[in-house]
């Protein structure tokens, strides 16, 4: 079945350093979504990318969708303590459907040292 892999599993950074997490799917995706889960919280939807090569920005966060629509990345510039959490990517289980659920990557845990 479809697999969504994320690396790294853990990332320690000093506050103010940049952070990047990478997501790779075994199949072509119709879209890719990113979520953030704070410690003790639940996943919160950040953004969805749909087009090949798409780049979207949210303040210090930059999201990219690969040309082949099989990979994606999230880059955070100048991390802050509020960025702590786990970042998940997710893609539709059935790339041609819409109601088959999302397959999530295992997430990247961002740990920030002040």
């Amino acid at each position, binding site marked *: 079945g479809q697999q969504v892999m994320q690396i790294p599993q853990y990332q320690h950074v000093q506050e103010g350093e940049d952070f990047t997490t990478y997501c790779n799917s075994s199949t072509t995706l119709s*879209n890719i979504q990113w979520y953030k889960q704070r410690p003790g*919280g*639940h996943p919160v939807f950040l953004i969805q990318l749909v087009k090949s090569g798409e780049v979207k920005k949210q303040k210090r966060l930059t999201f990219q969708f690969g040309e082949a629509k099989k990979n994606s990345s999230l880059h955070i510039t100048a991390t802050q303590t509020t960025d702590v959490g786990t970042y998940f990517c997710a893609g*539709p*289980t059935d790339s041609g459907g*819409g*109601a088959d*659920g999302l397959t*999530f990557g295992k*997430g990247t845990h961002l740990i920030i040292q002040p």
Partner: protein
Amino acid sequence: DVKVTQSSRYLVKRTGEKVFLECVQDMDHENMFWYRQDPGLGLRLIYFSYDVKMKEKGDIPEGYSVSREKKERFSLILESASTNQTSMYLCASSFSSYYGYTFGSGTRLTVV
């Protein structure tokens, strides 16, 4: 804002008990989902529903069933709880996989 409400934040049950986890959403979403989240394994889809009385198996449906009698409510049932079902259970709703999911706060279930 869309709200997805899970009935319990923490739950402790005994092995063999029948357990009901309730989830209610208030935005008329067609699709609802149950995931479990375990350290090192991420979020895994148990069941989902795209309409009232409709249900589809996810990746790990064994030992679980679901019920969707009303559009806003999606229940997860553990027929006979076992210790390996100790986990965080997350309910989510969405218009479809082409839209972001809204998750509930989760139910941390411990089976002893």
